[in-house]
């Protein structure tokens, strides 16, 4: 059965920002695009597309789904069986001073489907009507699970010629204890001219044993606050797409890195929940 990309739209300009990325992913991966509109009022398909300011031209394999209810619960329900959710961080009640709107926040937390978040002012590289990333950043914390969870990002990248920056941010030994197979920077660095080549080779082999050969991959290492390091790196390297694995809860004091990225990062951000 063909996979699906879920695109929730509420008619706002902010939510519509996700349209081209959603359509592009659907086309790249040969998936159905599900345009989801939640409202008490029901429209004809043409009327709805007009209301959402979407032209039918150039749209292929799309399905319109109209639902009633609360978006925070309907979207995660509709996302079951979808490969991706692509949505704006904000909707009708757009308050850009907040990290993201309440709907996006609820969906990100409630759904296990990878969510591509697009901010109202996102910088999108669009050519011939298609969004494609050119310089992707994947921050990795060195746990086997985080790498294994990255398949949704790798599937997209395999259809592009994007360069891939893998950024490993070293934590403390205390933080890293407990998971077999974890891998951080070497504690010993006998000679940098040998140690780092060897470390990079093992890092890639460990986390991307079957990495597609055509990826132009660069592995970088930094040390410090992960949010700060990711933002600095992405600004310096002009990354236009970030894919990150996270634990799945936005509770108080959790997901600090992710919250900061959502708030400060202007490029599309793919959030993937850690596989159990």
């Amino acid at each position, binding site marked *: 059965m063909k996979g699906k990309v879920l695109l929730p739209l509420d008619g706002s300009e902010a939510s519509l920002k996700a349209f081209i990325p959603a359509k592009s992913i659907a086309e790249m991966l040969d998936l159905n695009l599900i345009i989801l509109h939640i409202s008490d009022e029901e429209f004809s398909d043409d009327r709805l597309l007009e209301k959402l300011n979407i032209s039918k031209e150039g749209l292929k394999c799309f399905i319109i789904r109209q639902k009633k209810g609360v978006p925070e619960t309907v979207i995660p329900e509709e996302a079951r069986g979808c490969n991706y959710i692509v949505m704006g961080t904000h909707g009708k009640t757009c308050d850009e001073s907040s990290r993201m709107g309440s709907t996006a926040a609820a969906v990100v937390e409630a759904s296990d489907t990878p969510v591509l978040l697009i901010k109202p002012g996102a910088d999108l590289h669009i050519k011939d009507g298609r969004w494609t990333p050119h310089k992707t950043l994947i921050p990795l914390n060195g746990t*086997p699970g985080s790498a294994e969870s990255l398949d949704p990002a790798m599937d997209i990248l395999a259809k592009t010629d994007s360069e891939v920056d893998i950024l490993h941010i*070293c*934590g*403390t*030994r*205390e933080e*890293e204890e407990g998971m*077999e*197979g*974890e*891998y*951080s*920077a*070497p*504690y*010993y*660095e*006998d*000679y*940098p*001219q*040998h*140690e*780092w*080549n*060897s*470390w*990079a*080779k*093992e890092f890639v*082999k*460990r*986390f991307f*044993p*079957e990495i597609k050969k055509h990826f132009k991959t660069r*592995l*970088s*290492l*930094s*040390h410090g606050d992960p949010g700060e390091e990711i933002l600095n790196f992405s600004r310096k390297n002009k990354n236009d797409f970030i894919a990150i694995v996270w634990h799945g809860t936005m509770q108080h004091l959790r997901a600090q890195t992710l919250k900061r990225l959502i708030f400060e990062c202007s490029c599309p951000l793919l959030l993937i929940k850690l596989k159990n």
Partner: protein
Amino acid sequence: MGNFRLSYTFKYTESKEYRPLAEKTILPAREREIETIFSMGNGYIGTRNSLEESYPISDPGSFIAGMYVRGPEDDFNFLVRIPDWTAIKIYVGDKLLNMKESTVLHHMRYIDFKNGTVVREWKNEDEEGRITSIKIIKYISLAEKHEFGKLLIINPENYSEEIRVITGINCDTADFRYLLNLNSEAGNFASVLMKTRYTDKRFALTHKSDFMSHCRGKIEKKGYDYSINNLFSGSYEKFQWYGEIGNTYLIKTLGCVFTSNDSGDPLNNALACCEKNKDNFFDASYVNHGNKWRERFRESRIKITGNAYDQKLVDFALYHLITAGEFSGNHYSIPARNLSGESYEGHVFWDAEMYLLPFYTYTKPEIARNLIMYRYNTLDGARQNAANEGYKGASFAWESTDSGLESAPEMTVLPNGEIIMIYSGKYENHLSSGIAYTVWKYWQATSDDEFTADYGAEILFETARFCASLLKKQDDGLYHINNIIGPDEYHECVDNNAYTNYMVKNNFDIAVKTYEWMKSKFPEKLAKLKEKINLEDNEAEDWREFKENIYSGYNPQTKLFEQFKGYYELENIDLKDYEPRSVPMDVILGREKTANSQVIKQADVLMFMMLFGERFSKEQLIANYDFYEKKCGHGSSLSPGIHSLIAARAGKMRDAYRYFLQNAGIDIGNSFGNAAGGIHIASLGGVWMSIVMGFAGMYPVDNGLIFDPELPEEWEKIEFPLKWRNQQLKIVINHDETRFYISGDKEINLSVGFDNWKKIIPGNEYIAVKANQKWKWKEGVYERESAAAS
């Protein structure tokens, strides 16, 4: 699967009693570490212990010592990866047995310490419910330099079906950027002949297998089809037979490796090697290897009573030390990661002398001699290195390969994109004096006068010459060495590094002594050597003056050596503020800040205080340990072992034991993130050093051996063998008593504690007891105790 008859005459006996280091899980992320930990070798060939059927997570590889290559774009030589001889694929019906698509009912890998082999047990249930028990035993021979072997045992437990085994040499693992496959065919052998692409070195691998079935107590060598398949991607033997439920099938393989460095015709030599024992080819090799392993293990084994885990750590270290050394030396040495991975590119560092030579010198001095001969044989390269930098004499390469020419790069790119200069090849000049030190220690331990006169003296004189050209006399009337790097590589291009100055002073001292000795004992050889290297009489006179007048940085009031001039003025950083951490301090602070701080990478002052331990009082040792230990970030894997040793000598047993565990776990503990690229063989040498020279308190000196033991409370007793001046010693130490037993034909001198010498007569046992923290001889000579003499 238990014990098996391998042939009509020989039985394989499974080692049940002792299987330390058994690895029962398959964790993809750690697989390359496991390959390293269970790697095999004999100093000439080294092979990673990969899963034989190979998976994307595997990184199989074999290396031949000295098989260095270099392409037109490369700055330096590196050790090339050759084809993998461990490949085996097993098919039941048409189905390839593999762990990804089957149920693994049992899986275990371990080192068999009884036989000196690595073993894999695998019980597999395929999708059709067929259960196959498989055992694979592999070794690289310690008895015959060119041989390796593998034994495959297959047992179809609940089915009868066609079984097909493809076993051979996988060329896909070889580095074809630097190798050409000459695609040889050699009768009824699997074989590969390759040459290096940019030079004309050749090597050949041959692989010959034999089939045997055990059917209701009957051994048969028939009932199978056999063929050989030579492909560009590898050369394989194929066996196919009808496997019957409950029967056991064996495929025994002997392989041989020869290179053009060994002979002009490596392929025919490798074929002859496989054929030399006719039909008995595997059995003879297996038995000889096992016997040699047991002999070497007995000659080296440290037994710890009271802590089984620590015994495992020590056995792990000994397995790799024994297998790394056996055929090493002369034209190649032991690389930083042994022959177990491609990290460090097969380059040889100071580790080989400072961390490995002690083990070989005091357990198997023949190997130590061969390793020093490697340096002798690279003297021409060392002379060239010195000349290239405007010095005299011989400067051994910081990163050495087959030529002895410097192979350290001048720059590298860090993972953050920063380009940094690498100065170790140019300025880390203490290596040459370190090699001179080990020449002396070898001579001291063996009384091998012939070696010293024929080879050692040339190293001592040429390194002394090099040292002389480093010196600069300054206004204080002392000789200084400026712009230098010591073992603490966080501080580059400093003046008067205490370690370097001390080693240089010693280099002059031993060069002068050797010169005088040769003048009186071997005047003709001295004359010849002087002519060969154009050595003038006044050079030896100069060395005598230099050694008395080198700047030391020692302050008698504080008892401290200043690590280098200006060190005390640097910023003091409390390393505790950065704990716990997972990366080296220079990554956290940045290189510049680290260089401007007192944070050090590894033992520097403490390193020479360890090497010349008998010359320093305990007060001096403690003062320097207390000062420098807390400033050490242990950014090198060489650091914890030396800190364990020196802490034990200083009586700081908690530190000593903690560092012992840290060092011994560098590879096996999976804690430090870089075992996949190969064994940290020097750290394993450090395990032996920290026990024998630290906890057992052994100080080898010209007069004999000093022992001043103190065990950690975690151990009840240790015992170990040693060789000293051709005599075999057995030493048993517990917390308040030490027993010495000597076998041989000559008396030797032993001291318990310092200046408490006794002549030890072969065939007797001597006992020392500890009272009031001091060791004393117990009067009398005792009958040999069976435990000590075993």
